[in-house]
């Protein structure tokens, strides 16, 4: 009988917490912007920024001192590839350098005057290439294109020379290229940039908006004195469990909408790989969201003002993205730093999510991450309960103190009045 009473009391309290939580969120533009709209805005803007996925047609410059049919053929073959094209033919290095500083070209090929003579004479021609490594993707595209073209042209010359010497074709092939190197890019065949970074960004946004948003509402509770206002009649203070439960359910319901949008409509619109089984994704998202929300509730008890959470937490988005090892692989960072990264849900979720969506990894493949996330969910669930319990006690003490101060003041006043 007593248990039943407790349950109904708790359910009532949790329901009132939820009602207030929704009201606090939906009447506050700042909170709505972070907690709800941010995920739509960011996913759209980032998606558009990486919309083209691959960098093509990087302009390069050529200094052709040979000016022969052989050098013309070489220049034409630079243009044949998709990644770079010859935008300028500079007269000398000075002119090329100027084009370079003006950001008109991102690489320079220098063809010496004896180019054709050396080739025809069966000797070695020397070509110089200057690549700009200040932008990485540009460097990669330009370098690949030029080196690939030079190697191919070289192999052709060699092959022709061998055949001219009377060697049969398969033999000549084997001498020209004893080992063919073939490279296959798996899961992201065209190396799309959006496909690479978006899964990580999306998962990081989910965590960060939750932490900041929940933190803002934590400040609202303090500033609006909701700890007192929501206390059931006849009780001294609210009970810990219903508060945490009510908050968790509120944020879970909001996440259900936002993540559903991301994982279905957004993914579909931007055509990111969706190789994961829906059940695997749900199996991953559930502990992830719980861990994030519990961490959020824990941290939110520290904020006494609504603006504090964004001030304290916003900057951490970029470090957290790095800690997950996405743009800078985890193997490269100090072990202890990688260890610190593991206390954040995002580190596990990002790695698992990429493998699920891109590679079609199944539940068993990401079991270590899912286990880690459940572990975090349990730990942060515990810290959320403890932190909320302490906060409720503190608020109660504060209220009693204020009351005492007030009654003392009133007593003093009445004393003065009677005098």
């Amino acid at each position, binding site marked *: 009988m007593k248990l039943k009473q407790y349950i109904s009391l708790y359910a009532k309290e949790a329901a009132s917490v939820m009602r207030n939580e929704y009201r606090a969120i939906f009447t506050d533009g700042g909170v709505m912007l972070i907690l709800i709209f941010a995920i739509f805005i960011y996913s759209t803007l980032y998606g558009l920024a990486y919309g083209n996925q691959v960098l093509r047609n990087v302009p390069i410059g050529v200094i052709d001192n040979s000016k022969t049919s052989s050098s013309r053929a070489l220049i034409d073959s630079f243009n044949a590839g998709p990644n770079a094209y010859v935008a300028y033919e500079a007269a000398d290095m000075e002119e090329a350098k100027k084009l370079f500083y003006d950001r008109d070209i991102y690489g320079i090929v220098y063809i010496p005057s004896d180019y054709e003579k050396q080739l025809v004479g069966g000797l070695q021609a020397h070509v110089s290439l200057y690549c700009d490594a200040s932008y990485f*993707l540009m460097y990669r595209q330009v370098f690949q294109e030029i080196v690939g073209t030079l190697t191919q042209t070289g192999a052709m010359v060699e092959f022709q020379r061998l055949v001219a010497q009377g060697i049969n074709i398969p033999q000549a092939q084997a001498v020209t290229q004893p080992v063919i190197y073939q490279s296959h890019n798996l899961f992201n065949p065209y190396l799309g940039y959006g496909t*690479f970074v978006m899964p990580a960004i999306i998962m990081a946004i989910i965590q960060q908006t939750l932490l900041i948003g929940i933190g803002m509402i934590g400040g609202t509770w303090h500033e609006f004195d909701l700890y007192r206002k929501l206390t059931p009649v006849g009780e001294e203070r609210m009970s810990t469990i219903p508060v945490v439960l009510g908050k968790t359910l509120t944020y879970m319901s909001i996440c259900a909408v936002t993540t559903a949008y991301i994982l279905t409509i957004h993914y579909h619109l931007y055509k990111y790989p969706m190789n994961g089984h829906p059940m695997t994704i749900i199996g991953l998202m559930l502990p992830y969201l719980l861990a994030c929300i519990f961490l959020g509730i824990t941290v939110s008890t520290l904020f006494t003002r609504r*603006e504090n959470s964004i001030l304290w937490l916003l900057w951490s988005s970029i470090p957290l993205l790095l800690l997950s090892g996405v743009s800078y692989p985890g193997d490269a960072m100090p072990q202890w730093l990688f260890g610190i990264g593991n206390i954040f849900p995002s580190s596990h979720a990002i790695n698992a999510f*990429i493998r699920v969506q891109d590679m*079609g990894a199944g539940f068993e493949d990401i079991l270590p991450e899912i286990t880690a996330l459940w572990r975090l969910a349990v730990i942060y669930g515990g810290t959320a309960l403890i932190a909320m319990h302490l906060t409720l006690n503190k608020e109660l003490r504060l209220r009693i103190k204020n009351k005492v101060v007030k009654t003392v003041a009133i007593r003093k006043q009445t004393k003065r009045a009677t005098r």
Partner: protein
Amino acid sequence: MRTFIHNTYAVFRRELSRIIDKKIYLVMMFGLPLVSFVFFSFIFKNSIDSLPIAVLDQDNTPLSRQLTSMIDETASALVAYEIQDMEEGMQLMREGKIYAILQIPAFFEKDVNGNTQTHIEFYNSGCNITVNGLLEKDVQTVVKTFSTGIQLKLLGAKGLTARQAMAQAMPISFERHILFNPYINYSYYLAPSFLAMMLLIFSVLTTVYAIGTELKFSTAKEWLDTGGGSILAALTGKMLPITISMFAMTLVMHWIVFDILGAPMNGSSAMLIISGLVFILSYQAIGIFAITVFDNLRLALSFGGGYSVLAFTFSGLTFPTMAMYMGIQIFSYVFPFTFYMRIYVDIAMRGAPIAYALPDLGYMMLFQVLAIAVIPRLRRLCLDKKYWGKL
């Protein structure tokens, strides 16, 4: 003019006592920027190496093992697994244990010795483009070197001298010069950009906070009065401590990037330092704009913060602006960060003459228009009670 300086100084002093009063100010102006700097210094201290890959050696001969160990010796790759079939490799990949699989086919050694063309297959995961690029570069180089070695041996057997053989094997040799970032070090441009991101985030947030709290706690009138009723003096005095602290942070940033991480500095330091100051000022202007337009501390913080973190992507440092849609290319100009990083690349990495960086510096200065445009409204906010005390 003298009264202006006097008034500004009065506000400046008032601001200092506010800063000492509220610890969050110090946290934003010094604490968190420094913490984040330390974090990034550690992250970028190491270079990327020893990325685990698997080898599927179907030949299992001295020659195939030689190729495997050549790949293992490269800077980026580490042969962590020897697998029996492709499925095993794919499984390791799905478990996140390896980034790539190298396949050496059966009869590899026999074909090479028998003067028959053979092949090497490299299955490289595209999920992480950075890792993909590093592995691709190293493995390709090794296989090419290996292949050239075999060629030279074959040609030598035909009686050619080493020089002749070389000319025959590589009719076109190329000398590669990597401009401006000779070690192709990923962290040389990632580190400064992330540190600058931190600076701009804290510049915007602190600016919004400094003005927003005057509104929230209804002290706006008092602030204006301290400035002798001059909004310009009030604003200057208020911004000055933030400008000073953030500018000091840019100097710390230079120290970390150039001295600790050892990034190259090929141009004018003075130009970069001045750009750092203009960079900070432009983000303060954006902060002033946000809080004045929204006249609500929280909304302005959410907007300012949300806007701040976008800058990195749109600067084109990782995914070049050139490859973005036209509309997005234009959009990338609403972030002073874009111009600041262009200046950084021009000056520090490329060693370009100052003249090439001046236009970008000018564009960055244009952001001051945002602050100037809203000054009349800011004055109204300070005088009209109805804008105050919004919780």
